[in-house]
């Protein structure tokens, strides 16, 4: 009776660590969390497989070289593909300079002013505005008020405003990552603020800015909603030749074919999705390539 016992053995009712049960709950939770993570990835795989299965047999050179047609066997995405390229080019020309300039102003020129925090808060809110609302803005301002009509330019201006917050935020991050010693060195040699920015900060930040811009553009290429509102849906048989021509883009062509009651067009939609995904994959690979090259240099 006088032998000393560990406290838990002397009075088991007082403390019960239930180690086995807790370990079991822990293991179950670990598995559950892993499954949740894996589920998203499995669905991604199923989605890609399903679309590849539906679209594979419709993939052909004709799909890319033919124009839209009311016959599924002759229909292609050439006007939509060229329209998407136009849209990308014009959107870049508008959003890139505006976005980079805004980011440079915020990071290098504004100082810590109230105006700066106001602009930043505004940009953060713009990033959360639904894309279709940008479409409504584009319809009222670019299509009707500025009388650009349902043109490439009106669509590109709309998309440029849509991705502007993303370009600005990505460019700001890239500029922030440039070490301050670079700026101080340039100032010490007598450079002005613009010379410092133009010749020292900007070149170092450029790969990061480009990565962010490409990712933002890949979002723009996949967007359909704002362009439907701006009026890109019209049946387009011809390739746009100037920024004032009517247009359609790949996501909208896909949407048209999905909405078609004739199911033979669904295969075409799936095949076009494969083309669109390949297009986006190339853009993302370019962004990753740029980022890796950049991080190796530092």
């Amino acid at each position, binding site marked *: 009776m006088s032998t000393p016992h560990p406290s838990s053995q002397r009075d088991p009712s007082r403390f019960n660590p239930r180690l086995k049960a807790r370990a079991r709950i822990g293991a179950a939770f670990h598995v559950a969390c892993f499954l949740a993570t894996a589920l998203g990835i499995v*669905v991604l795989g199923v989605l890609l497989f399903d679309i590849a299965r539906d679209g594979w047999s419709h993939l052909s050179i004709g799909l890319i070289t033919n124009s839209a047609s009311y016959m599924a066997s002759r229909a292609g995405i050439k006007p939509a593909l060229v329209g998407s390229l136009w849209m990308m080019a014009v959107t870049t020309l508008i959003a890139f*300079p505006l976005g980079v300039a805004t980011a440079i102003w915020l990071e290098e020129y504004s100082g810590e002013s109230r105006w700066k925090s106001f602009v930043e808060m505004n940009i953060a809110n713009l990033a959360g505005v639904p894309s279709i609302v940008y479409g409504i803005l584009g319809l009222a301002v670019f299509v009707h008020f500025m009388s650009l009509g349902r043109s490439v330019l009106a669509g590109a201006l709309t998309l440029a405003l849509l991705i502007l917050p993303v370009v600005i935020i990505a460019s700001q991050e890239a500029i922030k990552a440039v070490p301050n010693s670079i700026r101080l060195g340039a100032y010490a040699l007598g450079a002005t603020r613009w010379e410092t920015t133009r010749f020292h900060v900007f070149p170092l930040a450029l790969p990061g800015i480009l990565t962010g811009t490409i990712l933002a553009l890949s979002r723009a290429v996949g967007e359909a909603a704002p362009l439907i*509102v701006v009026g890109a849906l019209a049946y387009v048989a011809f390739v746009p030749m100037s920024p004032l021509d009517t247009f359609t883009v790949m996501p909208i062509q896909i949407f048209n074919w999905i909405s078609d009651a004739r199911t033979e067009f669904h295969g075409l939609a799936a095949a076009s999705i494969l083309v669109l995904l390949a297009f986006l994959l190339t853009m993302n690979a370019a962004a990753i390539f740029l980022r890796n090259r950049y991080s190796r240099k530092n």
Partner: protein
Amino acid sequence: MQAEKSAQARSDAGRRVVRRHRTESFVGAVLLLCSIVSILTTMGIVVVLLMESVAFFRDVPVFEFLLGTRWSPQFQNPHYGVLPLLTGSVLIALLAGAVALPLGLAAAVYLSEYARPRARAVLKPVLEVLAGIPTVVYGYFALTFVTPMIKVFLPATETYNAMSAAIVMGIMIIPMVSSLSEDAMNAVPRSLREGAYALGATKFEVASRTVVPAALSGIIASFILAISRAIGETMIVTIAAGAKANLTLNPLEGVQTMTAYIAQVTTGEAPHGSIEYKTIFAVGLLLFMITLLMNLLSNVVLRRFREVYE
């Protein structure tokens, strides 16, 4: 000769200084102008939505719009009650949330607490691919894959239904929940976890009773943002949920959301200036206000209720 030269050099240098100063102030002004574009965008959105909505509300009383239960602007005898569209949006967003919030949170816990660095380096980017897939692609998947699957189990399901759009949208917003929540969990200091371990907690207890509560403000903010994103999503619901304004809470029926209505009207040719044209601005204003409020709310949650460490 020598003096002349140096005077020449001095005035050259002086001119260059003036020129550089001029460039400097010119560039500063141009950059400032560029930064104003983002402000103009916000103002443009608000002004455009308000102006056309005010014109709309001259014809349709605000109360009829907000409380009416029938939405049929294209019919002979038009009704302008937005409730069917609003419940359609909310129903789908909530169902999408029911899919995305638990899965996204569990994925965030896994990535932040359980995954080894190498597994994380693979899983996280692959998961984020989900957020980069164009929404028409999700729409196609919902209509041609998920809806037939639901019909296998529930044959009464309509071809266009809220359920399949919501499930697919839920999958789409998982990365939004998981990456924002994971950021919040990563910000929880190691010492808190070590303290819990020192008291004998298991890994599950550390995750569920220490890390998640400490990161709660960030997690809730990510939930609100994800739901707001779901309310603003257009293509999935336009393709898979149908075009029938329908006041119902049955997810197996087709419903039309606010965004799908806007897309539907602008697909057809609503004449500029007609009342049908104005409806998209009234519905757009409501959509804009809802998403803006939710985004602001998530910001408030993040700021007000953040546990500050360090």
